[in-house]
């Protein structure tokens, strides 16, 4: 019985993954079209932005030809799409380097920052969420509630600026800017990335903790929990063994949403700490009208979001025997 349900669960998961991958590809295609069209509506193009105020008409024409911008928009889109399908995201118009090279110098930074933030934020958020749910209505719950609510309410640029004023300008414990270079040691990196991680954590911890608390409390009122309590199961065991398997789906969903924010939404933190990540690269690409780079960044963010959502859904199915059986 158990074996049958597991295999049918795995099958359901595979079918779901297959379907979701197909629809993800469609989503990516639609997003790329949307971004391309919207970017066409922006005033100016890469040639004008690169030459700036001092451009002459002949120069703009020459540069446009060199960048391939003198071709009609649909042709440019199709050729970009063709390249993308064959695994080549093209040439950055501004940096004069392959897009893959530009991105490969930034993506690891972004992934590392997101991973370290997740490493800090997820356990803390779970602890806060479960802790305050177990003490529902009590002092700890209220204190944690006020803390998380104010963390959600305070914008991250304020947190970041105050953190810099305290930790780097006054106390001089941590550098005010995150310098990342190839030859730096892990210790140096962690020192530089400490404040960006802190600031990003504050935002996502609050969101995840509140969702966790809500999900756990939602389960605590169910009869099976009452049953377990009456059986004499210890409170911690009730939460871990009985409640969590049922609450895991909404929690993972909330986490996926928060974590997808870490990749593309870190632009403010990246700006304040001068962290060379992907979000600021995308902003660069927009202001310099560097279409191939912009498209590549958008595809990465979109794909990351879709993957996280997929993981959340698969987790939800595997955690729920009723969904598994379907």
């Amino acid at each position: 019985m158990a074996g049958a349900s597991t295999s049918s669960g795995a099958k359901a998961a595979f079918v779901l993954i297959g379907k979701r991958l197909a629809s993800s590809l469609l989503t990516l295609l639609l997003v790329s079209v949307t971004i391309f069209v919207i970017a066409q509506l922006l005033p100016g193009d890469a040639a004008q932005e690169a030459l700036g105020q001092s451009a002459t008409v002949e120069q703009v024409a020459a540069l446009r030809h060199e960048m391939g911008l003198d071709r009609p928009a649909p042709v440019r889109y199709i050729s970009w799409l063709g390249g993308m399908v064959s695994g080549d995201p093209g040439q950055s118009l501004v940096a004069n380097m392959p897009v893959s090279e530009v991105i490969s110098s930034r993506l690891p930074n972004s992934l590392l920052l997101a991973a370290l933030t997740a490493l800090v934020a997820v356990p803390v958020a779970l602890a806060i969420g479960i802790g305050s749910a177990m003490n529902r209505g009590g002092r700890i719950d209220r204190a944690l509630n006020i803390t998380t609510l104010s963390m959600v309410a305070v914008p991250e640029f304020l947190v970041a600026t105050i953190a810099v004023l305290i930790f780097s300008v006054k106390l001089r414990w941590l550098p005010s800017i995150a310098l990342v270079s190839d030859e730096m040691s892990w210790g140096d990196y962690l020192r530089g990335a400490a404040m960006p991680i802190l600031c990003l954590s504050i935002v996502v911890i609050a969101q995840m903790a509140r969702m966790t608390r809500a999900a756990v409390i939602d389960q605590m009122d169910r009869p099976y929990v009452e049953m377990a309590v009456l059986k004499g199961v210890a409170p911690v065991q009730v939460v871990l063994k009985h409640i969590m398997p049922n609450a895991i789906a909404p929690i993972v969903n909330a986490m996926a949403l928060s974590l997808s924010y870490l990749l593309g939404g870190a632009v403010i933190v990246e700006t304040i700490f001068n962290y060379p990540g992907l979000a600021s690269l995308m902003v660069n690409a927009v202001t310099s009208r560097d279409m191939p780079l912009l498209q590549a960044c958008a595809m990465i963010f979109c794909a990351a979001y879709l993957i996280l959502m997929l993981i959340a859904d698969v987790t939800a199915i595997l955690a729920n025997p009723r969904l598994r059986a379907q």
Partner: protein
Amino acid sequence: MDDISALSRRGLIGAGLGLGAGLLLPDGAMAASKPRRGGRIRVASLSSSTADTLDPAKGALSTDYVRHYMVYNGLTEMGGDLIARPALAERIVSNDQTIWHIRLRKGVTFHDGASLTAQDVVWSLLRHKDPAVGSKLATIAEQFAEVRATGKQDVVIRLTGPNADLPAILAQSHFLILRAGTKDFRTANGTGPYMVSQFRPGVRTLVRRNPNYWKSGKAWLDEIELIGIPDEVSRVNALLSGDVQLVIAVNPRSTKRIMASRGHGLLETPSGLYTNLIMRQDQLPTGNAHFVAAMKYLIDRPLIKRALYRGYATIANDQPIPPFHPYYRSDLPQTSLDLDKARWHLQRAGLSGVRLPVYASPAADGSVDMASILQEYGSRVGLNLAVNRVPADGYWSTHWMKHPLGFGNTNPRPTADLLFSLFYKSDAAWNESGWKNPRFDRLLLEARGEADQARRKQLYGEMQGLVHHHCGVGIPVFISLIDGYDRRLKGLRPVSLGGLMGYQFAEHVWWEG
């Protein structure tokens, strides 16, 4: 025939003056501290993006200029007195200001060990005429009718017309000299004081001292790391927390924070940078001379200097030559806020009670506040200005010079001729107000070919008067540039061409840590 050019005579006098000024400096920094070798600093510039380049022709932003001056040299160079002196050129002379003879300095080598030859110079200058290079100064390079090598160390430049400013033009970062045939700009092969050890666009530029630099003794620092911190608050924080030792473009609002720190100093550079009100002369009602006069009387210059720039500005007089410039004309009457005169001119223009949109944007520094101040005074004389604030992104291509009433922002240019040719000549592409003054155009051409300094000053003086009286631009103040530095960094001096010693600090500073 004068064998020695006006330039080298001027150069000599200028050098003497510079020496005198150095001795008179009350700062004591120069007297107390002798240049010494060693040390490593990190410098934060204004911006850093994938558009960062090591190709001088493409240099667009202060970060690029700084990077280029670190690794390359020009035929000439300019100091705080705005006089061009020979650099890679040993001598640059002309009899008629049209055909220029350049003798190159001997014994100059590129970072890869190759010797500097006339071929490198010819190639470096002529590439600006190739549209595919995308040079920022292509329009200026059109003046080069011919550039050819006449020997291993000799170059002749024939211009399309006389231009006494050629030495100053060649000092600009775009005309720095490359090795002939350079194609790959992932790294740089120059003759400059520093060699590139790492260049990552949008992240950092790392350079180390060139041990074979041709200027004896220089440079002093072992290593310089150039990064960009676009956010001003972050930049100042990085300076105060000791993560960087030199920052460009400090906002006047942040000056108090830096002055409060004992270990940090401010370098104020009076400059020719200005944000100006543009009144299009080819559109109505801004083309009305009385309207233009009224607007100039509505500008409260001391208020703008005090409130917008905390005193880090110089009052301007509706013409673009700043007071410290050698060709500045001092006897023009200063326009100041006069509501009665403004009201009278407005009535003569028949525009009392008219509602007019004025376009302002963060792209033109301070313009939004200036527009609000104008709006306030305008309402007192019966002029109803509506401030349209538009985004900085795309401002220059979509809004600048397109509306009857708007704002522009002009960076300092190395010569009066460049400034007037680019922004005030009748047929200039950026003739912001679209004014047309045949007398001005004639004077401009005459001054360009004039070798006599006194006569030149007179000609430029008359042009300043014409712009002041008739042109449709209102220039409230010249904005000072402010850099912040760690006090252990010595040798910094203001050079009004730009921040960080006209972007050329790298070879002049030393570390006393």
